[in-house]
């Protein structure tokens, strides 16, 4: 069974994102900070007439802060709210076969929480990133 995946780079790694989770890919403009919010919330940005919550993917994965220069984002909708997930770059959309995570694969930190499978692109394994897991869960206090 093959699904469409968006191949992107986050924190220098290639990842695959299920196309069903992707609303659009945009370069976001000015980000307005949200004081007192968790560091994972970079701020708010306008996307046409919509306000999206910008997620600092670096921090969400327990890595370092995503540099300000990175403005490319994957827009996803989780429970009716629009989120912009910051990414380094996106490559293209292609069909892949969804594979389970190889046994013995030791994902750590943030990666473990967001990885939900593998795809193989030209023999290169890419982690399937669950965007819904990148978005901070409700009830996560500042």
């Amino acid at each position, binding site marked *: 069974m093959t699904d469409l995946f968006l191949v992107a780079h986050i924190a220098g790694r290639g990842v695959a994102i299920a196309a069903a989770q992707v609303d659009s890919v945009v370069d976001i403009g000015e980000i307005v900070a949200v004081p*007192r919010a968790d560091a994972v919330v970079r701020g*708010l940005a306008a996307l046409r007439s919509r306000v999206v919550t910008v997620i600092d993917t670096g921090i969400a994965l327990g890595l370092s802060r995503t540099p300000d220069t990175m403005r490319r984002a994957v827009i996803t909708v989780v429970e009716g709210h629009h989120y912009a997930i910051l990414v380094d770059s996106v490559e293209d959309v292609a069909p892949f076969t969804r594979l389970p995570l190889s046994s013995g694969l030791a994902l750590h930190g943030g990666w473990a929480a967001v990885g939900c499978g593998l795809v193989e692109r030209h023999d290169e394994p890419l982690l399937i990133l669950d965007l819904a897991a990148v978005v901070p869960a409700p009830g996560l206090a500042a």
Partner: protein
Amino acid sequence: MTGLERGAGMDDLLQEFIAETRETLEAISGEIVAWELAPADGARLDAIFRFVHTVKGSCGFLDLPRLARLSHAAEDVLAAVRDGKRTPDTALVNAVLGIVDRIAQIVDGLDSGTILDDSGEDLLIAALAPDAQKTAPAAAAPVGRSASRSVRLNVDLLDHMMSGMSDMVLARNELARQLRDSDVDPKVEAALERLSLTVADMRDTVTRTRMQKVDALFSALPRMVRDTSAELCKAVNLVIEGADVELDREMIELMRDPLVHIIRNCIDHGIETPTARRAAGKPETGRLVVSARQSGNQILIEVSDDGQGIDVARIVAKAAEKKLYTPAELAAMSETSRLQLIFAPGLSSRDTVTATSGRGVGMDVVRANIEQIGGRVVLVNTPGRGLRIIINVPLTLSILSTIIVGVGTQRFALPRQAIEEIVMVRGDQVRLDMIGDAATATVRRKRMPLVSLGDLFKLTKDTPPTLVIVSTREGDYALGVDTVLDTEELVVKPASPAVMATGVYAGMTLPDNGLPMLLLDASGIAAVAGLRFAPVAAADAVILEEVVPGIPALLFDDLDGQRRAIALAVIDRVEPVSTEAIRWSAGAMRLSVGDAIIPLYAVGNFASRREVAVLRLTDGESEMAYAIAEAIEIVELPFEIAPPRGSGPIAGVVLIAGEQVELIDPHALFSGQPVMIASPPVCLLQVDGSGWMETFLKPALEASGYRCVTSLARGETAAVALAMEDAPPCEALAPVVTLRRSKSADGDDDASIYRYDRPALIAALAARRAV
């Protein structure tokens, strides 16, 4: 049978029915023609069957007997055809089609308000019978079909339109920005100007599509009022005004429960029984007016009754009884704050719980719900004459009137309805202080907590130059900001959970400059900043202190014919009492109120009266009554008070409206009377079985203002306990005063009191209580 005779409430349903029926008729017109050509075609039959079936269902609901009869007859025949009991021949098809046509005509007639005569309908129905003669279908006079002026739309479509509108506004703004930066032809500018006007106009129109007549909210009320008043054996006449005022659909839904609750409360607590109304000189039927009107971008929904109003004294007593506030706090409250007690959680003003208004879960929830949608509730209470409850809600949920504040480099919106006033810190009226580590602002002598938004949000460290006085349900506080920029009407959307988790935001919005902005939640900020508000009383007390000019006083005619005045603050209430409740006993005049006895002061004779008005006076702790002839009005006392000569509870003479009026000295009144403490401290007697304590000690103690008990009821605490030296208390429930039998003390460190040394005993009790 016409829709015009119906209550306005049915109109919407009827309109919907007409629109729906027409839509279906148009949709099946093709089927009808096809069926005419091929009567045996079962598929065509189904569509027509569904149509008459639906019409029949709606008719029963809407009480349209003619349509019901027609559709029912057609349905029967079609059912028989479907079951194969009858074969559809041309005669049958014609008869059914005749009925379908007739339904269409009646529906048109309903819409245009024309009443069709029902001749020929029997013929139409008779034509359905299997053995019917070929009847010429009654040629109904064509009814001028009024062009349909309404269409049914999906709310999603409207929402989509709304968001498209916002996009358009943003695009226009972007265009304007681009043009501003370059040198443009005045013609282009004029075109842009026109575009802007059109867009603004469009925006208003689109907003209006979300509007619905408030009638949708009011239409259910007549029935509810009828049922509720019948259940409570009261007679209520409901008057609805302004049902054509429009309100956001969502708002109407959100207002439904609070309104129902308020009206139930009015009937239950406000309007008296017919007997009581007659006794009060009112018409037996109570009047309940529900009205709506628009005022700017606010809708005012008012519920007023001519019932008994709110008995503030009882509410206060209730609050004291439920220990929501201490007596001192209650005494310090202003009349408005006392009235607001009906919104206190866990306070039901009624002594008995009824099925209708429940048990005090009501009004606090009602107010919370209304405030949640950006509304406010105002009470106007006229005791004995009625209560007006005014609900103030914004026109739409999505568009909020806000004030934009700047902090550091960021801007935030604050709902305007939460803002009391905006003051500059420079200026004499405002001072900022640190009390311990808590910042406070004092604005015109009113002290309130200060929250610096820059500090809270870690945006600036500077002292805020501007204060926004924010009013929340818990209390007022000053929010320090850098600047107040603008007022703006904003379309507010809910923010994502990660943002809402901070607890300080109420939503987010995209103003015309295209930069997202957060809407601040005033209560949330207070909570996050750790503000703890003392009950409202504290704030009131501050105000009371500064109100030096003009002490309000009640002017009254005394029993000896003199006109006198007494400070309003000491009057708890004025009420008529039966003279039978007044007795000269144990050397003083006393009034029995319920199961308590309070001292009464009277300067004249009232023996000839059956009833006498008394002022119930209180100093916050003890109570007494002052009998008067008649209360006149509330006046403001002048500064000048001429000193009295002689004794008696007269503080002096004041000039009110050119007349010399004696001013009562409440201090003298209270000091001259044996004190009767409203809620006396409890003295726990450690009885030893001899009965001495109960017989000898109890009356003496109670004369000194204690209430004596031999064991504590559940939840009761004793201020002090008394025990004999040989029977010490088994567990320390209160500070203990020990009594001894011998006159002399047993050594210097013996703290016990000789049991007949009354002054020493009272002093020791008071001293222990204070510990």
